[in-house]
């Protein structure tokens, strides 16, 4: 499922940055872009001004983000201030401008049969949110976070969600994969959609492989370009290396020996 991107990067006005617990939710007015990106697709983002000359003279390349919601002509991106790129993006204020390229890559494919089971971990809730918006009540949503401060992002979801945290400060004291195991015990016909840190994705992959459950994983890798030019974002699959930016970021879990890829999620 792919919506084509306009060719080239384009300026987009920042409509605002909301604090959502430990995360920032950046809203961009994308007047020149398509209003119908597919959940799981992503955009390359850079600040128009002061992109560079930050910590260690970085950032320089744009950064890849799954969009989390399209609302009133605005596109939302959830980010966590953890490096020079996310730090600069988190500083943006209403009226400043971004460079935007996208939507890029291939998004989630609806289930052939069975109930969609959506699993999001940490910042990986971004594509799960728009996918849940689209699927509505048909989908069951399971979310995991480090702690209550991060779990505030669960409030963005319109319907009911099951929540777990690593320290038990919100929801159940568990990894989200334990919630997934319980759901699969009850319904082995589900189709799983997951996005989160590599160890979580690997746990989801292994569990679904063991149960013979179909799973689509939205994966992450460092990217320079986002449109297949640099060949930098490959993950190993049973059919060789695959570029996440053009043949992903959503990958059929059955294609993977492992979801743990050197260099991802560092």
């Amino acid at each position, binding site marked *: 499922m*792919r919506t*084509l*991107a*306009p*060719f*080239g*990067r384009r300026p987009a006005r920042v409509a605002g940055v909301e604090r959502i617990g430990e995360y920032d939710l950046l809203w961009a007015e994308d007047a020149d872009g398509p209003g119908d990106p597919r959940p799981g697709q992503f955009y390359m983002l*850079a600040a128009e001004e002061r992109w*560079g000359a930050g910590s*260690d*003279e*970085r*950032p*320089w*390349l*744009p950064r890849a983000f799954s969009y989390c919601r399209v609302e009133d002509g605005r596109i939302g991106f959830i980010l966590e201030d953890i490096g020079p790129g996310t730090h600069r993006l988190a500083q943006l204020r209403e009226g400043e401008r971004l*460079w935007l*390229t996208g939507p*890029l890559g291939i998004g989630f494919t609806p289930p052939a049969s069975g109930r969609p089971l959506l699993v999001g971990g940490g910042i990986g809730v971004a594509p799960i949110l728009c996918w849940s918006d689209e699927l509505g009540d048909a989908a069951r949503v399971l979310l995991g976070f480090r702690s209550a401060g991060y779990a505030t992002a669960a409030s963005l979801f319109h319907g009911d969600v099951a929540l777990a945290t690593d320290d038990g400060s919100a929801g159940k004291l568990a990894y989200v994969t334990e919630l997934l195991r319980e759901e699969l015990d009850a319904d082995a016909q589900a189709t799983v959609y997951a996005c989160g840190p590599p160890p979580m994705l690997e746990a989801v992959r292994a569990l679904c492989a063991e149960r013979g459950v179909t799973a689509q994983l939205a994966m992450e*890798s*460092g*990217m*320079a*370009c986002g*449109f*297949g*030019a*640099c*060949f*930098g*974002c*490959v*993950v*190993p699959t049973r059919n*060789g*290396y695959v*570029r996440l930016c*053009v043949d992903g970021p959503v990958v059929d879990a059955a294609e993977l020996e492992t979801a743990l*890829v*050197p*260099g*991802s999620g*560092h």
Partner: protein
Amino acid sequence: MTPAREIELCGVALRGPVLNGSGTFDAIAARRTFGEALLERFPFDAFVSKTITLAPRQGNPPPRLWETPAGLINSIGLPNKGLDGFLASDLPELAQLPVPLVVSVMGFSHDELAELVGRVGERDEVAMIELNVSCPNVETGLVMGADPVETTRAVERTRTRTDKPLIVKLTPNASEPQAVAAAAQAAGADAVSLINTLKGMALHPRTKTPWLGGGSGGVSGPAVRAVALEQVYTVARAVEIPVIGMGGIQTGRHAADFLAAGAAAVAVGTESFRDPAAGARIADDLAVILASERGLSESAGTPAGTRAET
């Protein structure tokens, strides 16, 4: 009025002087991403393919990228479908691009290189061939493009296999790129292009072992522009054949600098990663700058290419 920008490079008419660096733009993947808009506003005046080798290659294990101050280190490892796969599946798609096609080839021996050039050269869709000589010759252990004698042999061996223009892509990791360029010219090359990436490395922040799956990599981006400009300037004074200059070009002004240093054409590489349409933007800005400089030199007798701006 749009300023005229056509050039002729090695006898091939180009609508302008802005190419892409090999391996920095995959027109087939870009078309999947951007659709036909890519062809309507194709950003380069000739398209240089990613380097192909005789046998298919998977490329290096990840991670393959590291961001540096104003640049990038990559260790991609030339993944490609091999000569047969390229000719069967990629060439027909690349032939649909609205600009002449340059195919980049790399051989791990002179025999391999000769076969690649011979078989690519017989295809009508191919306008020119670029020899990527930044790899070791498995027979001698020497990096072909780092050594004038190796370069002479590589060009002599391939020259007899095609009448198409041969471009030698020079590596900056040579003690005297101008000597390699002169050797390429003497052996029958029609042009040289430079620079390829500079060798570089990054360490894992925690383990302090090399970050890149391939160990070391190649540095590109504006971080290398001053190095590239000096090498283009020096090489352009050592050879008569055209020089295609590249290395960190981000703006029309940078491109104009490379032309003023002696390049006949320029190539955009890493900047396309930041903006897929960078080539078109740079070409437009360059045309305006060159027209204005021509106007200045005609009206006030100022030599073209000089400016006091800092």
